């Protein structure tokens, strides 16, 4: 494994602190309250599952955590920096260096090879071509796609595409990986395989925040936060998270998803 992943998190490292976060969208004349005062803290190294029905505000919350959107009110501290006061460019810098995204629809650049997709974040920070290439290859190897670096998204299966986007999220050694329904487009076996990679990353200190409405997927996380109507309904530790490796062992053998 990569040396950068073996850093041990500080015991009480507080990564995210969110205070009274609200988000109001204006749709014509009336206002939509997507978030109605969210306060939550996330420590480094946690594996958080955010759950809730659609429209409960969990995606909005996720976008704000990912610095893709800004809150209407409230504060968001990322490593003690008040992110809600930063400029567009500063937010871009944080997305580039501290946050990795994994989306339900993969969001890969089509007609662009796997390795170039993974290199994308490194294009926006000063990295030499050589280092960029090496980092991208090692990120793809980490997600088990070392043999497909020059494939295009349309030559890869759903699970493989999601792994490419995971490699892209990892390539710049982020503090947090934010995943919005990462298994939403995958079958159950592939889902567990992808979750397995998340668990593996988490063991190496990367904080994972995962949005899902599938309770089975949430079982793999060690903390569950439930959203309802823009508020946190419950926030509890999962004392016995499932291990994806174990689950996969017990699944009946299947055709490997690599075969297209």
């Amino acid at each position, binding site marked *: 494994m990569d040396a950068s992943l073996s850093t041990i998190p500080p015991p009480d490292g507080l990564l995210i602190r969110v205070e009274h976060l609200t988000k109001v969208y204006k749709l014509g004349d009336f206002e939509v309250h997507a978030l109605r005062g969210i306060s939550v803290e996330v420590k480094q190294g946690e594996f958080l599952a955010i759950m809730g029905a659609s429209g409960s505000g969990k995606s909005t919350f996720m*976008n704000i955590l*990912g610095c*893709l*959107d800004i809150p209407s009110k409230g504060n968001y501290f990322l490593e003690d920096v008040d992110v809600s006061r930063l400029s*567009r*460019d500063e937010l*871009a*810098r944080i*997305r*580039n*260096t501290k946050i990795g*995204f994994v*989306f339900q629809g993969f*969001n*890969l*650049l089509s*007609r*662009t090879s796997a390795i170039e997709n993974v290199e*994308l*974040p490194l*294009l*926006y*920070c*000063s990295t030499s071509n050589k280092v960029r290439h090496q980092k991208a290859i090692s990120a793809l190897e980490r997600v088990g796609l070392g043999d497909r670096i020059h494939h295009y998204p349309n030559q890869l299966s759903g699970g493989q595409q999601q792994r490419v986007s995971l490699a*892209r999220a990892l390539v*710049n050694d982020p503090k947090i990986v934010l995943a919005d329904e990462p298994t939403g487009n995958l079958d159950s076996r592939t889902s567990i395989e992808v979750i397995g990679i998340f668990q593996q990353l988490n063991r190496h200190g990367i904080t994972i925040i995962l949005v899902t409405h599938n309770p089975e997927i949430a079982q793999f996380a060690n903390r569950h936060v439930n959203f309802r109507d823009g508020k946190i309904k419950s926030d509890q530790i999962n004392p016995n998270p499932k291990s994806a490796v174990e689950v996969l062992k017990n699944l009946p053998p299947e055709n490997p998803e690599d075969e297209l």
Partner: protein
Amino acid sequence: MKVVNILVSSFRALLRNKMRSFLTMLGIIIGVGAVIAMLAIGQGAEYSVKEQISALGTNVLIIFPGTQQQGGVRVSAGSATTLTENDAQAIMNECPAVRYISPGTRAGGQIIAGNLNWATGIEGTGADYLTIRQWPIAYGDFYTEQDVKGATKVCVLGKTVADNLFPDGTLVGQNIRIRNVPFKVIGVLSKKGQDPMGHDQDDTILAPYTTVKKRLTWYPYLRQILVSAASVADIPVAQNQISELLRMRHKIARYDQDDFSIRNQADIVATATATTKILTILLASIASVSLLVGGIGIMNIMLVSVTERTREIGIRMSVGARSKDILAQFLVEALVLSLLGGFIGIAFGIIASTLISDLAKWPSIVTAFSIILSFGFSIAVGIFFGFYPARKAAMLNPIDALRYE
């Protein structure tokens, strides 16, 4: 984002839609090509007009007698009986800026050679006339100073006259009769063609002005004096010297008008080229309209491209692209289109102007200036029309761009 990386990704994006990129460039290609070709044609016209006028001879000044004034009634210019042979002699002796001089008079009449005849003008000139006008003799000789002094009955034929009177070509040494006065043909002028006003300059006969005066016109004054200055820079100097000398010789009081006029070649050239300059500007401005249309084409395609690639923009922003990175990417794409189009357009324009000048027998001149101008123009078009779509892309909200379907 590094410049190289921006260039690479711009080229890739353009290559992904080859046909569309080419069609977009076509607007610029035609625009730049048209500007270059039109400028080349305009400048060719200017050049050929200049060439025709300087065919009269360079550094040339023409002195005409002024208007005659009799008790307030003015008669047409050139009718004054003020220019004399002595004036011509004085100019030669006392104006250092003057190199050659040729007093002139004119007659017209029917010319008979054997059983053929022809009507034309007879130009009485000095021996230096052809030197001043830079007009070589085709064969035979020109008359000398000796002929002028002795008023010998010799003449030199223009090409048109020679062709009409002596179709078989042997004419040196033959006699012709001008208004029943026999003249011996001693030479033929080389072909000069038309002057800027369309007169056939070859339809003329040259003879010593003394002979023309004595045998044909019996008019004691000169119709004109042709003078060449020592150099182009000496033209105004010569003009001043002549003017002062003639005023003094003609005893003109300080505030009275000249009784002669001096026309200089540069003025005629300036007037004529002003016309062709207008033509050039007109052609170029019509052509630049198509460059403008090409630019609008770029803007149109870039706007479509921004809309189509909204998700790509969102993805790039989500992994850390700043607004200026996105701006640079789209601006560079527009610039690559317009620059590439500009390059091809220049080649196209040069080929087109060569073709036109070959087909229309019209000179065309592609100058470095017109290449730089249209190239600069296409860069400007790229930046100007690329900026709005690029800015539109850069100002997108990351989350809106990501969600765009």
